[in-house]
């Protein structure tokens, strides 16, 4: 739609009085502003402009970490300690349950839990993405994607903390697991983070509109921890329907596997990469569609 004729004549060049320029040392702005452009933003524009502001999403993510651990002496490492205690206790029990050597089971459990904690925390926090941040986008134009990037970034920082447990456990029990294949964890993490962006935007919008969805997400994530091979070794499940259901067709298994396998010194199966990439493509497409359609409703729903 073109500007109406009336509107156009109203803005055509009758020069107004030139206001005094700022003398306060702000950066000089160009004297002539670009022609009037629509204020609304497309979903793609939002995603792109948001991504180009790492200063903003980096800071938002970092502040949240700081906030969480404020006024504690050892700060984020409380989490690390609880993960360490968890791994040692549950690991000892699990090693007995599944008749495995501690040097084999503990690294498996540790690396699995590392990834799982990142996935579950991201999913849970996604539900609050827009609900908890209304104060950030009620001021003016806002790139909602910065919230998603900051969420992914923050959970990446948390994972780096947890990595300490992995280094200690593997360093003591099975140093031979660290090999060149371990580097494959990096692309694996990158894939998970790409998935994190679409999940957080999609869940964020959904939970903003329907506030009770959050409980559902929490329960689903909790139950899936037991259905996904994190505690139990995948090869303990006999071939059959259950195996294909909980392993081959379990997206969370593949998501865990693209990072866990490298941490255990193995290359992930091609199947896992295909699955995670496929999820990223389909998920991003769905989330992009939803973001295009509902982006402008976010402010109204909040």
């Amino acid at each position, binding site marked *: 739609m073109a500007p109406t004729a009336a509107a156009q004549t109203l803005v055509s060049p009758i020069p107004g009085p030139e206001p005094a320029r700022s003398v306060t040392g702000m*950066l000089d702005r160009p004297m002539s502003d670009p022609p009037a452009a629509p204020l609304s933003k497309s979903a793609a524009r939002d995603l792109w402009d948001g991504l180009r502001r790492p*200063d903003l999403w980096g800071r938002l993510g970092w502040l949240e970490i700081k906030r969480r651990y404020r006024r504690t002496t050892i700060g984020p490492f409380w989490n690390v300690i609880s993960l360490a205690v968890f791994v040692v206790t549950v690991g000892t029990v699990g090693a007995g349950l599944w008749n495995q050597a501690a040097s084999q089971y503990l690294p498996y459990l540790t690396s699995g839990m590392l990834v799982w904690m990142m996935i579950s925390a991201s999913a849970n926090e996604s539900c609050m993405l827009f609900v908890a941040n209304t104060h950030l986008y009620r001021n003016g134009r806002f790139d909602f994607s910065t919230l998603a990037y900051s969420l992914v970034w923050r959970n990446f920082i948390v994972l780096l903390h947890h990595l300490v447990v992995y280094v200690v456990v593997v360093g003591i029990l099975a140093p031979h697991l660290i090999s060149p294949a371990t580097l494959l964890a990096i692309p694996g993490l990158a894939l998970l983070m790409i998935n994190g962006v679409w999940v957080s935007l999609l869940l964020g919008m959904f939970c903003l509109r329907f506030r009770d969805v959050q409980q559902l997400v929490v329960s689903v994530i909790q139950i899936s921890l037991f259905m996904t091979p994190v505690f139990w070794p995948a090869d303990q499940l006999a071939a059959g329907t259950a195996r294909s259901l909980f392993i081959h067709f379990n997206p969370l298994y593949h998501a865990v596997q693209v990072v866990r396998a490298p941490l255990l010194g193995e290359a992930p199966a091609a199947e896992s990469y295909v699955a995670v990439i496929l999820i990223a493509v389909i998920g991003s497409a769905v989330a992009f569609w939803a973001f295009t359609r509902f982006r402008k409703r976010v402010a109204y729903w909040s």
Partner: protein
Amino acid sequence: MTALILEDVHVEFPIYATQRSFRKALFERATGGRIERNGGAGRRVAVKALNGISLALQDGDRLGLVGHNGAGKSTLLRVMAGVYEPVIGRILASGKITSCFDLLPGLDIEDSGYENIVTAGLLLGMSHAEIEQVIPEIEEFSELGEYLSLPVRTYSSGMLLRLGFALATSVDPGILLLDEGIGAGDARFADRATLRLQSLVDRSRILVLASHSDALIRQWCTKAALLENGQLVEIGPVDEVLATYHARNQAEATRA
């Protein structure tokens, strides 16, 4: 060329899960936006906050928004700021839009004043370099001194206001959107705040001010717009619009 153009802007706020009786009560309300049902079943209720607003502002325009509580003044400001995208219609703008709805967005009371300046500055769309440049000015104006390095939690509300005000008014506004009631604090600060706000307004190229104060509107605005039930009743010279506004108030008062 700074400009702000609204074309047939409609804004509706959806209301979810309303009780039937509450809905009825809403329909009979005297002021505020018009409440409408969408869809055949009438299951979705929406408050029509803005109804077909069209206006165009250009360089040098100073527009005052007048109207009752709930007439749509604040909503209109927020739509102009880009918080809400119109349900129908569109808004065109050229120039940087500055709004002062929330003086310190992203405020974290555990962070120091300096840290909050950076967070809020980034959220207001400034870069680190730009923030660095305004910090001396904020230090000077807020007179918070050493406090700026302490957690904001230790500030009095007046000090917090000074910090927010100093930051919000340090920007170089193209299109400035003001909702009334920014400023105040203790007497000494109030005077300096008025001066500073005046300078902010002078630097802006377009001003839109929502206010219930005739004096403020007469002082700062060259045009005024009267809103009623989300509709633009009149737009024109300040005196004429204020006269209409008061005449309508009078008529309503006698009717009631």
